[in-house]
């Protein structure tokens, strides 16, 4: 299946004989500078470096800007863009067809933290083995700038006024739902993001990855408190919502574990990221809760691998299924015998 790469021997090939371009998707149609594009790039990089064959990966998404992004990576993988907040159920059913496939689901804060909260929680408690990325920007982009449930209290958005409610913390929700892998990163921190993606892909269970992914167009508050702290005066408020200026993608230099880093967003606001300490033990669930709570009280977003428990059987293991993919079973193995029906008929007489 690698003949396309073999025809280009001059490029760098990975261990399965594929070039980085074999992992690409269609060109992004999201806004220039959107954090989601950076995430797509890191998914491409991670899978290439992990020597995964694209045909062994299956992609899912719900509805929203984030959910468009599975088309921007892995052209050679099957994908299904489902309904708002209902990617998890779709993914569970689809992965049942062939449990040897790696599942990557991409959702957003609008998709997962509101209508999708139920399915988000339930795919976690079932420990369906897949990566669940929440591209989190605190705002509904595709419907042009309404608050999402992860927007911090007090955030002011054009046309929306001031957000009155405390935000949903994706990582805290995942931890409470007994996720076996909880991590957070920032779309503009490619090195950390790629490493966390690799860890998530390697995890044999649900891997929730909350990625703070700034919206270049609509998260244009003029004052802000809590985690998206106000940075400096907004110089150019957007007058036309349909006008989207081209911007540079935000990236930050690598920074040390245990330190914090302020990041200026497109609208001039800043967020404070804090990397987990080097000696932080991500297998301690209690510690994970404390770290999240401490960060919340300091208006920081903790990044890194917050919790992992690799020892929990995944969802499919409990079904004692045949070894080969269910979707390759021939009819002779699916239809019981005539004798079995005769016995049933005798029973119901």
């Amino acid at each position, binding site marked *: *299946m690698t*003949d*396309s790469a073999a025809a280009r021997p001059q490029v760098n090939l990975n261990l399965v004989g594929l070039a980085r371009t074999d992992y690409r998707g269609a060109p992004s149609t999201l806004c220039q500078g959107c954090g989601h594009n950076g995430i797509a790039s890191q998914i491409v990089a991670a899978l290439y470096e992990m020597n995964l*064959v*694209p*045909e*062994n990966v*299956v*992609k899912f998404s719900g509805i929203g800007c984030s959910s468009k992004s*599975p*088309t921007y990576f892995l*052209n*050679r*993988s*099957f*994908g*299904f*863009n*489902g*309904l708002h907040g*209902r990617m*998890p*159920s*779709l*993914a*569970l*059913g*689809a*992965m*049942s*067809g*062939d449990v*040897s*496939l790696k599942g990557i689901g991409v959702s957003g804060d609008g998709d997962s933290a509101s209508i999708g909260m*139920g*399915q988000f*929680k*339930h795919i976690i408690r079932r420990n369906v083995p897949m990566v669940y990325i929440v591209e989190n920007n605190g705002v509904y982009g595709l419907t042009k700038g309404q608050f999402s449930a992860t927007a911090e209290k007090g955030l002011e958005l054009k046309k929306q006024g001031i957000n009155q409610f405390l935000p949903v913390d994706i990582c805290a929700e995942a931890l409470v739902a007994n996720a076996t892998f909880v991590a957070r990163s920032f779309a503009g921190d490619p090195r950390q993001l790629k490493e966390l993606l690799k860890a998530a892909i390697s995890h044999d269970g649900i891997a929730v990855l909350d990625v703070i992914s700034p919206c270049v167009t609509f998260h244009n508050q003029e004052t802000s408190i809590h985690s998206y702290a106000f940075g400096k005066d907004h110089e150019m408020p957007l007058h036309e919502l349909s006008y989207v200026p081209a911007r540079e993608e935000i990236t930050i230099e690598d920074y040390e574990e245990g330190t914090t880093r302020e990041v200026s967003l497109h609208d001039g606001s800043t967020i404070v990221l804090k990397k987990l300490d080097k000696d932080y033990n991500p297998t301690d669930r209690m510690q994970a809760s404390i770290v999240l709570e401490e960060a919340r009280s300091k208006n920081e977003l903790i990044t890194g691998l917050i919790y992992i428990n690799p020892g929990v059987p995944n969802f499919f293991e409990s*079904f*004692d*299924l*045949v*070894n080969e*993919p*269910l*979707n*390759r*079973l021939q*009819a*002779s*193995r*699916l*239809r*019981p015998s005539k004798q*079995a*029906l005769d016995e*049933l*008929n005798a029973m*119901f*007489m």
Partner: protein
Amino acid sequence: MSDESPTKGIKTVSEQHPVVNDFCLTISTVNGSGSATANNLLLRALFRMGIPVSGKNIFPSNIQGLPTWYAIRLSKDGYLARLEKDDIVVAMNPASFSRELEYLVPGGVLFYADDIKQEISRTDIITYPMPVKKLMKDADVAHNLRDYVANMVYVGVVGQMLGISLDELYAALDFHFKGKKKAIDSNFVVIKAAADWAAENLEKKDRYRVERMTGKTDGCIMADGNTSAALGALFGGLQFSGWYPITPASSLAESINEYLPILRKDPETGKNTCMVVQAEDELAAIGMTIGAGWAGLRAMTSTSGPGLSLMSEYLGLAYYAEVPCVVWDVQRVGPSTGLPTRTQQGDLTQVYFDGHGDTQFVMLIPSTVNECFEFGWRALDIAERLQTPVIVMSDLDLGMNQWMTKKFEYPNKPMDRGKILWEEDIEALVKENKDWGRYLDIDGDGIPYRTVAGNKHPRSSYFTRGTGHDEYGKYSEEPDVWERVLDRIAFKINHSTKYLPAPVISSNGKSDIGIIMSGSAEPAVIEARDQMKAKGMATDSMRIRSIPFNEDVEKFLKDHERVYVVELNRDGQTRQLLMVNFPQYAAKLVKVAHTDGLPLTAKWVRESIEAHEEKLA
């Protein structure tokens, strides 16, 4: 026993015509008292005696403490519809005692627990008090089981008075408890004691009795529609069922779980070949099912009206993205929570028009338990053949009640997996330099070829979406692309009738009068037609088994002057759908629709049609 004869003034048994194997016996109990076992014993024992029987459970949406009725109809002629009046009532519930009396026919029979000290207002019935408490006190039964086993008293007394043999009751117990000796014996001891008591203490004064008969139940079984649908699906190679509990559909998914270990262990490895997942809600149940169908599994969910409403959006996506899946809608009375434990054919128009935008869903409508089995496997074939959701319209009456039905027949054709391409198929296309696109109509039948996740060929994958897409699955907002794809899907559905079960047409003499019905409306129509025929009015009937409508439906409408459309809903939904599809015949269609939560009766059907005919005369 009271010294005063409760049967004063009515004919003694010797003066009356005996009524043999042709009456309705209704048992009135409190729900949660475990009466279902007792009722099923009587039903099965009668069936084992060769008597055509049907049992209808009229129960409340409640766990314990409210009145519940179980109506057993014995019909030597094989009629299975509900009767409006009771010939015999077994009254175990003081709360509904006075109401039971109203439903008894003159000369009817009342068995009652003798601790019910209420006035018996009727003098034209025969009464048999049963000393339930005393017999239970004498019986050697563990105290905590007494309430459950108390119902065995009426099994024994009624059995004795009607002539049901103890051997048959024992065999029915053996069936019910799947051979578990202890359970069988602890119940049987009470039945026997009660039967002995009745033989010694009750004098037969009524005209009803049962006799063993032959010829009517040969080759028949007794089962409910939900169990049968589950079995049919398992014989259809079902691989995935995502579901969420809802009355009256829950027992369908639960039956899949029950029979899975027996039927679907892989013959080669002993491992499982089918998954059942209880979802968090119907939104997820349909999401899982569509995901599984998309990945190449034979996938199904089962629900009722409220759940179906929640599934609409995903069904619309599956229609447009062309994902095969099967949904069993075991209909109950709506709108809203409605009468959740009563039956209705109320979702027909909802399903037909389900989803926003232009959609049309393939619908199968089984009428018998046997057909529930058949449609269980056929629906999976049709869904994969047409790459579209198939909705099977059952209802509470068919799904949850016990019916005498023909034996299940083994699928008469190989599994149809539809147009699916694996690696070697794509390789062959590539070698022949042939084009392939997920939504490309290569054969001109509107049905494209599909690939599924797990196919390792580099040209196999595509991205599935509910947004506009072209023949290659690529995102498109082009006006002509949108219209072309939607028109092709319409063509595919409109030309699907050759894959669907055709209508069943029956005639009892040359007639200008046609009767159309579907689903569980059939038994009442069969009986009503016989009654009308006996009075000199021949009719033709057509039972619709699938939508889009078969070409025979149009012919039937064309060939009849008046067509009565009989159904169990308020608005005449089948008639509405016929009018939409055949506006040229709309004026011929007469609505015979009614819904009060109970199954139709032949009397109501006949009287409705006769009333309309008289108006014309």
